[in-house]
């Protein structure tokens, strides 16, 4: 996993509420057996018209947002299915940070596993960041995970919370499995006790 330390980039505003995982990546694109290549179908139904041409009104089809690395989203972002294809599609497009008032649980978890930082900030703060994002290329945001701050174009710093363990993993690009493997003796002991006490499990 690519570590996440500091990111300075263009932020795209996508304020609509309840953007579900079917919107992020529709089911018909889940037939892949790879993690990569989903970026072209990110937000497919919003991004393309029925004839396949780009919808010029959609934010990621406009300059400079084609190169957005940060997404400022609405409440309950990522609700719906557990498909990790949603963060994979975001990542493949180039988005490494999503800021929203709140997220659906599974999507939120899935982001951390893929080197994407999801940040929860109150709606008023998101509104200010949305206004910044509207300014386009002149208004890059900086996300500093080490210091846990988002730096607005005017220099104002906004603090955000992040789980310490997840922060550690993101900063160092650590894979959970390797870390859990270190607890293997405890898992063995648990299983041995289980087999004796509740053999049907």
């Amino acid at each position, binding site marked *: 996993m690519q570590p996440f330390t500091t990111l300075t980039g263009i932020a795209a505003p996508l304020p609509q509420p309840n953007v579900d995982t079917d919107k992020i990546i529709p089911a018909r694109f889940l037939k892949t057996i790879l993690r990569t290549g989903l970026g072209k179908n990110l937000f497919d139904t919003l991004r393309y018209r*029925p004839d396949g041409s780009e919808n010029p009104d959609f934010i990621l089809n406009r300059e400079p947002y084609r190169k957005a690395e940060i997404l400022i989203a609405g409440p309950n972002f990522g609700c719906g299915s557990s498909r990790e294809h949603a963060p994979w599609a975001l990542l493949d497009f180039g988005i490494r940070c999503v800021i929203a008032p709140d997220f*659906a649980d*599974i999507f939120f978890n899935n982001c951390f596993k893929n080197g994407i930082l999801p940040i929860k900030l109150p709606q008023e703060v998101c509104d200010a960041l949305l206004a910044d994002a509207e300014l386009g290329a002149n208004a890059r945001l900086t996300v500093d995970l080490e210091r846990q701050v988002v730096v607005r174009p005017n220099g104002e710093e906004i603090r955000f919370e992040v789980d310490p363990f997840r922060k550690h993993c993101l900063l160092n690009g650590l894979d959970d499995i390797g870390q859990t493997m270190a*607890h293997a003796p405890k898992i063995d002991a648990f299983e041995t006790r289980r087999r004796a006490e509740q053999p049907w499990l």
Partner: protein
Amino acid sequence: MAETRPRTLFDKIWDSHVVERLPDGTCLLYIDRHLVHEVTSPQAFEGLRMAGRQVRRPDATFAVADHNVPTSDRSAGIAEPESRIQVETLEKNVAEFGVPYFPLLDARQGIVHIVGPEQGISQPGMTIVCGDSHTSTHGALGALAFGIGTSEVEHVLATQTLLQKPAKNMLVRVDGALPLGCTAKDIILAIIGRIGTAGGTGHVIEYAGEAIRALDMAGRMTICNMSIEGGARAGLIAPDETTFAYIKGRPHAPKGEAWDRAVAWWKSLPSDEGASYDTTIVINAPDIVPLVTWGTSPEDVVPVTGAVPDPANESSEARRAAKQRMLDYMGLTPGQRMQDIAVDVVFIGSCTNGRIEDIRAAAAVAKGRKVVSGVRAMVVPGSGLVKEAAEAEGLDKVLIEAGFEWREAGCSMCLGMNPDQLKPGQRCASTSNRNFEGRQGPGGRTHLMSPAMAAAAAVTGRLTDVRELAR
């Protein structure tokens, strides 16, 4: 354990599965059963292969292909190349890693959340995961069951554990008796209508109360299934005699002395008297009416006897705009009577409503009636065994006679990954769980409802109060 405070069902299952508690409160949680399907697993197996890892407990892992499979005759294999590759990849992976698998032509094949309970794989007190958000379904048996992403699928395959923070407890109590003509689907739609699609975020919902206790296992599964539409990763119903009777004798259920020990433990699981919940919601069952959705979020519910709501009544500009967008997408106008809305397609199936009880309910409405000409109505059993059971009861004949298509088991038009898709602008009365834009096919319009109501829509050609057909 020196635990004396009254605990909830969730607390008890959680506590009994903690392998290790890390300093920040994150727990390494042991996973009893892992269900695997073709869409969210290929990258996980690939990850294992690349790291030279094994599946830690193939005996606790079960695989089946469901999302992507055709529901027409499959004896000649899968025609669509990408779907075929995905299913073949699963078959290759289960063979390589020694994971039990129900092949496509096996009667036990079906939607993973129908198959788990049906085979007795899902049992009370277990932790159950699957790379699919509707894993919440298995909570109906009193198991802590939730959906995970592909990285977590890989994590469970390799370690049989997950790193998790405990969820908050939410109690949804449904008091009193459910009126005639209403079903478990109406209960859960009423709940989601009340709490909203983010209402359960961060929580596990325990469903309790007289109306829940009175439900059979199929109804309980319908309720727990849609916990995720209420924002909760898991739903739970305390195991009771109904649960035990359902599990007894199933292929993977405990047998002999193990059965007695298991039941004794299961009886200790229900929440203790005085256990506290972070949030409590009370719903009065006698007030529930048959419900349908009008918008593109499962919280957009109205009584079938009601009308399309007016966005002007929303509290903020953002909400007005969001609701207006939904109306435009759905092709509806404020004030329009729900029962005047004509449908093009009817879909009866999915892990929400694809069990034998659901097919019986649909057949009861279809019997002696005809699907309106121009309407495509399909019934997709949740598993091959559900299909066989329905055929043994002659339900297939009743449905085919009425003009329904009778298909092979799978997810089908619930998410339209296989050829079963809506065309742009088509309107569907569906027993599935999500009415998101494009969920059942690009541009498709979905109204969620119970199987009886969907069957009623098929025979009248419009959204219909099933209670009127009963008169």
